[in-house]
């Protein structure tokens, strides 16, 4: 409804907390694009990303009573979506990792080889030469825990300390993961991988 579009976020949050579903609908309308992109950068699959984005909104709604409405909604819901996507990646990683690893002496770290299969999406093939698409593919080629720090630092603009809290990691691990992830991205973009 158009009348909701004019309301400030804080008012919508208060109304949503009182069970006004349409007020929450307006918040969904405002944030769905951004949130979908958070999940899509992490998962790289359109359908999974839509599902998890919707799930994030539902979980956030169910937890809304505990949310301090004086805080901005965006970072909070993005954190929920990020956690859901990372859990999903972990499960998917476990499910797709073969039980018996083929014996290949001197092979690279298997997780760094875990490239998602993107060859079946025609739009990707079509845009494969483009710089942005190269970057997307490079991001998806990163192991999930590297992808997570890149997402939180570069797209959600968290500090090292905030990332450590969000991922429940020691600060030193956050830094080494982040710097290593950047090196991997650079190599891939510069055509060394």
């Amino acid at each position, binding site marked *: 409804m158009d009348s909701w579009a004019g309301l400030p976020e804080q008012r919508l949050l208060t109304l949503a907390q009182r*069970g006004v*579903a*349409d007020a*929450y*609908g307006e918040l*969904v*309308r405002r944030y*769905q*694009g*951004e949130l*979908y*992109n958070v999940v*899509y950068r992490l998962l790289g699959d*359109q359908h999974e990303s*839509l599902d998890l*984005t*919707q799930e994030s*909104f*539902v979980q956030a*709604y*169910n937890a809304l009573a505990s949310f301090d409405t004086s805080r901005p909604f965006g970072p909070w819901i993005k954190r929920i979506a990020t956690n859901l996507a990372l859990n999903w990646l972990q499960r998917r990683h476990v499910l797709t990792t073969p039980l018996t690893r083929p014996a290949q002496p001197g092979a690279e770290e298997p997780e760094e080889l875990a490239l998602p299969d993107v060859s079946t999406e025609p739009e990707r093939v079509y845009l494969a030469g483009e*710089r*942005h698409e190269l*970057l*997307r593919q490079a991001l998806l080629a990163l192991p999930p825990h590297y992808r997570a720090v*890149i997402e939180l*630092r*570069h*797209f959600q603009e968290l500090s*090292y300390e905030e990332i450590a809290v969000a991922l429940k990691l020691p600060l030193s691990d956050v*830094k080494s993961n*982040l*710097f290593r992830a*950047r*090196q991997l*991205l*650079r190599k891939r*973009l*510069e055509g060394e991988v």
Partner: protein
Amino acid sequence: MSHLSLETLNHYLDNELDGAERAAAETHMATCGQCQRQLAALQELFLALETLPPAPLPRDMTAGVLARIAPPPAPARWTWRAWVALAVQLAAALILAFTLASPAVQSLFAVGNGVSFDGLLATFNGLWLRADSWLVSAQTVTSTWMNQATSVAPGPLAALAPLQWALLLAVTGLLWLVGTGLLLTPQRGTMNAER
């Protein structure tokens, strides 16, 4: 002087160096082409990430989210309760009517016919006049049903005395109230849940 470490370059771009560290790094880079190139390459990655355009949202998901957070107020449960209440009501009225219409009860009333029953009848009529619209509805329901019942068994029901009618209506009204209470229960539950 040794080159800047990868960590220092990352800290530099993340604004995580303090004033002195930052000044030292800048002093070194001013005269070191290799560290300048390292920093520029890293900076290029930062810029690429910063300028990555958002992917288009494949479809609006507002309706999908709303469907999951605000389901319609349990229509299945409502219908179930409504039908139970209605069935209980009709069954009770049916049993009562046929009991009153049976020859044995008819004879009982015939024997005791007199002043006391007229008094009772007056009381019931008084109550009836003061009853609210719910009882009027009950009368409508009951009359409708009675008309149907009459067409099935015209003999005994047509012979019902006014007192018997009054009793029948009063008891049916009572059952109707109980039935209404049953119907209102889920509504109250819904209102509580909203708060």
